[in-house]
């Protein structure tokens, strides 16, 4: 009897919106190929503007409960995300290697760094307020204090370089601060972020806190920057023209916009990305004057 070669099962790559995996409402997708450009890897959804709006709505809905969680609890959930990444790290490594063509050991190293970076930020959740905020010695009988609060819904545009590590370096500190996000995955290597979505979906992360879209930046950056229910933008891997256009559109509701450019001294693999800066970039400062008296 002739031996039957088992046919592999290909996975449909979907958008991650509000905790569920959907195809684009537009029904559009595009094929992506393994590094080298010949071998078919997957059909990846091309998110539409409607998908973006749905993702913003999901992020807004998730925000209330996420920011209301205790900082300790958010830290626990981030740590759980790292645990799930660790247990499913072979998937991440495979996706990374297939998509980018990096060597096995390089993929392993990037995955390790990504997991460690999530742990790093998990530990920040219940310390941010102490480091960014403080009491103020006002010259009047008031207990006056300044504390950071999450800015709200943050739109994140991820670059192509180190698609796993750069995604983690931007998105995790933003959610550590209590924000919810709508992330546009690396345009060139979207499958890595889709894999992450599948891992996050099996962690304790509430649906809607991290929403992940795959698609064309040229279609989605504009609507993201002008969306009136997006409070801030984290932009990486974009051109100077895109930066300008995004900032022009963002002015309409005075979004907080940060543009992150990696340079030779700070590649995404650098430990320079492990600090409080990105967390603090997406915190609002609230000052309260509480009376002192009888």
């Amino acid at each position: 009897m002739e031996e039957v070669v088992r046919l592999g099962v290909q996975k449909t790559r979907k958008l991650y919106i509000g905790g569920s995996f959907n195809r684009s409402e537009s029904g559009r997708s595009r094929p992506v190929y393994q590094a080298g450009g010949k071998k078919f890897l997957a059909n990846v959804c091309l998110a539409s503007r409607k998908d973006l709006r749905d993702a913003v709505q999901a992020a807004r809905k998730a925000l209330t409960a996420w920011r209301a969680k205790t900082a300790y609890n958010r830290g626990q959930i981030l740590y759980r995300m790292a645990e799930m990444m660790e247990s499913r790290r072979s998937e991440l490594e495979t996706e990374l290697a297939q998509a980018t063509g990096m060597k096995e050991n390089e993929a392993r190293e990037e995955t390790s760094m990504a997991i460690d970076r999530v742990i790093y930020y998990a530990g920040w959740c219940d310390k941010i307020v102490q480091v960014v905020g403080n009491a103020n010695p006002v010259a009047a009988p008031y207990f006056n204090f300044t504390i950071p609060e999450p800015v709200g819904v943050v739109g994140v545009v991820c670059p192509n370089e180190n698609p796993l590590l750069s995604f983690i370096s931007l998105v995790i500190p933003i959610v550590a601060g209590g924000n919810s996000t709508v992330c546009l995955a690396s345009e060139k290597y979207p499958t890595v972020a889709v894999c992450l979505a599948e891992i996050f979906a099996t962690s304790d992360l509430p649906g809607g806190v991290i929403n992940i879209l795959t698609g064309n930046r040229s279609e989605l950056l504009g609507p993201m920057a002008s969306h009136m229910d997006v409070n801030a933008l984290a932009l990486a891997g974009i051109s100077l023209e895109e930066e300008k256009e995004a900032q022009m559109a963002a002015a309409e509701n005075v979004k907080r916009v940060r543009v992150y450019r990696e340079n030779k001294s700070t590649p995404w693999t650098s430990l320079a990305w492990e600090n409080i800066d990105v967390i603090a970039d997406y915190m609002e400062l609230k000052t309260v004057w509480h009376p002192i008296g009888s």
Partner: protein
Amino acid sequence: MGRKTKTLAKTERQTKLKKVSSAEPSHQIIQFGKIWPYAPAPESTKIVNIQPRYELFINGKFVPPRSGQYFDVINPANEQKLCEVAEAGEADVDAAVRAARQAYEKIWRKMPGKERAKYIFRIARILQERSREFAVLETINNGKPIRETRDFDVPMSAAHFFYYAGWADKLNYLIPGREVAPLGVAGQVIPWNFPLLMAAWKIAPALAAGNTVVLKPAETTPLTALLLAEVIQQAELPPGVVNIVTGAGATGALLVSHPDVDKVAFTGSTAVGKKILRAIAGTGKKATMELGGKAANIVFEDAPLDQAVEGIVNGIYFNQGHVCCAGSRLLVQESVAEIVLRKLMRRMETLIVGDPLDKNTDIGAINSRMQLKKIQELTQVGLQEGAQIYQKRCELPSKGFWYPPTFFTNVAQSSRIVREEIFGPVLTIQTFRTPEEAIEKANNIAYGLSAGVWTEKGSKILKMASQLQAGVVWANTYNKFDPSSPFGGYKESGFGREGGRQGLLDYVKIL
């Protein structure tokens, strides 16, 4: 958003205030003010010497504008011309930025923090020494009561310089474990409502962090900034560290979009703030935006009501309501709405509107004809929308720009006078039943600068404070400021902070 507004509007109709009754019968209250009226107590203006013409302050000297243009500056309380002031054009702004750049590269950034600190301390001290002069000049130029300039604007300005001076040699304590560096040249554009104080808020942290400055005061109120330039000369601050260019919006636009300006700091309207953000898009300039507001001042039934009424009055009528963080929306719990309104009307009758130089005056002149028109237009809109108006009965001077303390009832969350910043002594009054409804109404607005909460219950204060989308929350007080206390907005009220450690962070980069 749209749907939410409609639902609120409906609730509003159900909980509409009963028709406002007039003040309590007079036999219950002895109004001493009517028996013994206040005698005039005018502050002497002798201490101020207003020159016929003011030049630009560039590189430590007063220089005539290359533009050759001057504009008139008036006293808004009597419309008399005070002087003419140089209008900086492109070449002037460029000269000022070049002076600032040179001072930055050659002197200020290299100077040890200890020495920078001493210069800033000097400015603080000289301001204190010349405080009366500043107070009188500010009142003449701005129209705000002398009591406010004397007791608030000037001492608070000096306090800001004093506070930030001490930071100049302690920048390594700004962020734990991190080194910081100045940004370079700061282009700063300030409004007319607190002319000297806004200059202090802008200049003091910038200098402490090691930046140099080009400041553009508002077109109607440049005089105290120019007097500050004299103080800066007396303090022997190195030439070019602070430059002051006067002019209107066009001058401001030239300054913020100058390619050699590294940091833009703006205080003013949200509309202009958005224009600036678009103008500097893609340039990599850092920005601080302190924009408009429409703050909710929330009074609960368990509040100390007399104190709350003082807070309502201070919240909206302080500085003629020309305050970005003014408590312009009173949200009062339904159960005490009637009594609070009655107390408010009674208190309004005792407010003295008139000569800003009189030490008894509570409410001075509106800063400009343009602003007066805007207030009048928006109150007209309120009337057209069916709101019920109440204005203090008082005589207003025939010359100058004046508007009586005013409030509106019968307004909806969707009313324009509830949603738009009026920037005048006009209050809107809404009611609520539950804390959740108060939060919903307070937050359902594009702005998020400040809020007030009045209750005797401390835990309620902190609960409300945590849910209000506002950069500053005052509990059982309003319009309090301190150099150590960060001030700034959420949402369309801008970003960045002024005051405190956080205010300094906006003038440095982290290495």
